[in-house]
């Protein structure tokens, strides 16, 4: 009888091993290269502000966690006769990368925004542009830490909406 039990146990283990080998053998392995995320930031003029360039101001087709940030920029010009407080807001087309992309916007030494695309929907810090003057904005886009896996294969086109408010003249 012990011999029969040992045989049964051995058979069970062999069967389990065969099943495991079969499952592992048919498992679809991940391709060696991870899919990139693609992001395009666009900007367009308002009545009070001219922008250069119009359209795409940052285009990244290969965002990955281990790569350097994608860079872009635009120049904003105040074409009114009053000083303007200007800020930017994100208007994503799909929102697929809202929490995956970190965006940094600077004007000279000032950081206007540093955070996710999602939070930029609420707007950046404002910056002053004098009448007839221009400010150059720099854009850096990268994947947020730990979001590389989630962002794979995703893409979005995000309009950077400019809003401006005339600054009251101080007497």
């Amino acid at each position, binding site marked *: 009888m012990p011999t029969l039990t040992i045989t049964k146990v051995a058979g069970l283990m062999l069967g389990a091993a065969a099943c495991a080998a079969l499952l592992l053998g048919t498992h679809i392995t991940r391709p060696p290269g991870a899919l990139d995320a693609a992001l395009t930031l666009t900007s*367009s*003029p*308002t*009545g*009070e502000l*001219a922008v250069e360039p*119009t359209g795409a101001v940052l285009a990244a087709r290969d965002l990955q966690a281990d790569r350097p940030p994608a860079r872009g920029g635009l120049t904003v*010009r105040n*074409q*009114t*006769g*009053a000083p*303007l407080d200007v800020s930017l807001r994100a208007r994503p*087309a*799909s929102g697929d990368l809202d929490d995956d992309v970190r965006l940094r916007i600077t004007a000279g030494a000032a950081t206007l925004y540093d955070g996710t695309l999602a939070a930029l929907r609420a707007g950046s810090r404002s910056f002053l542009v004098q*009448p*007839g003057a221009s400010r150059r904005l720099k854009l850096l886009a990268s994947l947020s830490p730990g979001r590389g896996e989630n962002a794979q294969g995703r893409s979005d086109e995000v309009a950077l909406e400019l809003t401006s408010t*005339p600054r009251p003249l101080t007497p």
Partner: protein
Amino acid sequence: MTPARRILRSLVVLAIVAAFVGSATFAAFRGTTANPNDSFTAGTVAIGDNDAAAAVMNLTAAAPAQNSTGCIAVTYTGTLDAGVRLYASLTGTLGPYLTLTVTRGSIPTPSFPSCTGFTADATDYLGLGAGVIYSGLLSAFPTSYATGIVDPLAATPETWITSESHVYRFSVTLVNDNQAQGRSQSADFTWEARNL
């Protein structure tokens, strides 16, 4: 184990095997196609200018023939192609004594209300000079979209597209008429875009 039990056990095993084989037998090739991620967004019609709520022209205690000139840049920021008309809201009694000329053109780097660098459109829309879209008394200026000046007033109205911008030079002059004394006037000019 009795023969009956053996037969019964064999039948059970056969039934299980038959179930598997049966499902395999009835399995068929199949194919599907999907159309995912349908999304729907409405286009926009939006237009703005560079006046920052300031007046483009101003006459204060004006004498006969005194003139005020200013330029305003108008930019279309909507996503739908649109037509634009210009009209005004008028208040006061000085309108019949003010002549107004509106000329459409461009400025490379507009700075409200300066007209420095203004270049009128080459087209003589009304036979009154290059780029002129209105010339007459302020009191006769259209006051509604229905009667508004189609931009530009020509055989083929302009189709405004996203980021398109034009500059309008306004020039108003007080006529030499004794009846104008002491009167006043205000005007709000409106560019209205409607998608085509």
